């Protein structure tokens, strides 16, 4: 197994220029004919945040609990973080079928297509975080030294999303229904992740009652997205570090996902072209 994975990684590294071209053309292709062009990378999370703020902040009056503006930031991190995983997975699951033409003309390593999809969405994700930090700095938010851990969490999150996206891309070759399934799963995960509600009582926000039960809380954090979103908030909003145990768990899940994804590709990519 490990030999196949190493070979897969080497082939991808050799094709890094192809991946770069695909990533860039994926971003351009998407935004080329739009009047606002690449601004959509920013507008997309901003608009989502506005919607959630209106629904949960204003209608459900959840924003009242915290300092003004804090709830906006809380939701923004949730939305930007979740969208990275959601859109990466949604695009990866169809990325092999979507490149049928190219795949039937060359023996390029098939993994370049989901990898390029994830990288393009990662670019959007980083832009979103950058805008957030600028807004936070402008509104007088002072980061602590823990912000230096941010690249570590982002890297682990990237590895996780990449691994799961490779798995989704592999399954998507053999089952055309996989993309419908991804949509449903992501909708469930949206509600099973701390995007617009509170899991921990922090800075004036009060955790929902169910989370007072430690068993519920432990089970809840088995969902890696919950851990990633809360870790991002720890570093960006609360100026603390996520617990070591959580970070180790997330690292483990991320590495296993990537290993499984790469193994699936190294074993089965020789058959993909027959199924699409």
């Amino acid at each position, binding site marked *: 197994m490990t030999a196949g994975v190493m070979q897969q990684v080497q082939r991808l590294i050799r094709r890094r220029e192809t991946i770069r071209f695909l990533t860039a*053309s994926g971003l351009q292709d998407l935004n080329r004919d739009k009047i606002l062009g690449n601004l959509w990378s920013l507008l997309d999370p901003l608009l989502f945040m506005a919607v959630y703020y209106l629904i949960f902040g204003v209608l459900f009056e959840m924003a009242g609990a915290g300092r003004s503006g804090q709830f906006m930031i809380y939701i923004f991190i949730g939305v930007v973080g979740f969208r990275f995983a959601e859109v990466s997975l949604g695009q990866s699951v169809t990325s092999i079928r979507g490149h049928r033409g190219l795949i*039937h*003309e*060359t023996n*390029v390593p098939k993994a370049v297509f989901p990898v390029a999809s994830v990288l393009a969405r990662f670019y959007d994700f980083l832009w979103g975080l950058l805008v957030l930090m600028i807004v936070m700095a402008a509104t007088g938010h002072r980061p602590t030294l823990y912000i230096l851990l941010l690249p570590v969490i982002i890297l682990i999150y990237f590895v996780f999303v990449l691994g799961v996206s490779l798995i989704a891309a592999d399954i998507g070759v053999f089952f055309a229904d996989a993309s419908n399934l991804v949509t449903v799963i992501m909708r469930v995960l949206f509600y099973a992740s701390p995007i617009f509600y509170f899991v921990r009582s922090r800075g004036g926000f009060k955790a929902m009652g169910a989370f007072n039960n430690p068993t519920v809380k432990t089970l809840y954090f088995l969902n890696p997205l919950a851990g990633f979103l809360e870790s991002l908030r720890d570093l960006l909003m609360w100026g603390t570090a996520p617990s070591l145990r959580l970070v180790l768990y997330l690292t483990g899940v991320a590495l296993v996902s990537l290993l499984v994804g790469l193994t699936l590709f190294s074993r089965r990519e020789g058959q993909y072209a027959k199924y699409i």
Partner: protein
Amino acid sequence: MQSTSEPLATPASVVAEDIWVGFAIRYHLPESTLRGAFVKSLEGLAKRRLQGAGRREFFWALQGISLQAQPGDVVGIIGKNGSGKTTLLKTLAGIWQPDRGQVDVHGVVSCLMSFGVGFRPNLSGRENVFVNGSILGLSRRQIGERLESIVELSELGAFIDAPVRTYSAGMKGRLGFSIAVHIDPDVMLLDEVLTVGDAAFRARAGSILDRLRENHKTIFLATHSLDMVRKSCTRAIWLEKGKIRLEGPAEEVARAYQSETGG
């Protein structure tokens, strides 16, 4: 078939040993309405319960093909539709792995199965040259160096900076071909593609094939045109139902094929 001339100086560039390639085929029942589809899917489920396997069959498209080609060979592949010509080329190209047997190809492979299907419609021709060239294995520098020549051969002129979705089929075809021949491959696989384009383009494409052969490249050419086999190929392989029916000098195979099919 082994060439006896210079056995050591020209090692085989392509070797296939007893390759088998199979496809699982699922037959779709005709269904015109959603309700019909639903009813049929229920029937299908019930049947599958009863019969076990359902309407799935395994089909061997290639059945034990072995071949060798040396640098400088132009191998024509002929046979009826469905005889396995395209499947053979795709296997040699490494687009999929054979289910059994082994393929060894030395050097850079470039294949041209159909024209320009891999282009991104919203990007310009120039941008697509970089994306496709890179996928086909060229570095950014190599593409930059060859860009002018690619554009020239494609005869696109100023249209190279227009979005590919505005191109005609012929324009896409010329650009695809132009990129493919600029890969500078050691082994080139062509599937019935030289027949598109106008006479002037065909003549140019033919002269490029000649140049590849003179530079000791190996070319495989799947075609229905026996004229092309006689004119451009040194050898030919006649495929029938996934097996090699006859292999030998181009003229000989073309004659045998013609006398059997009457065309």
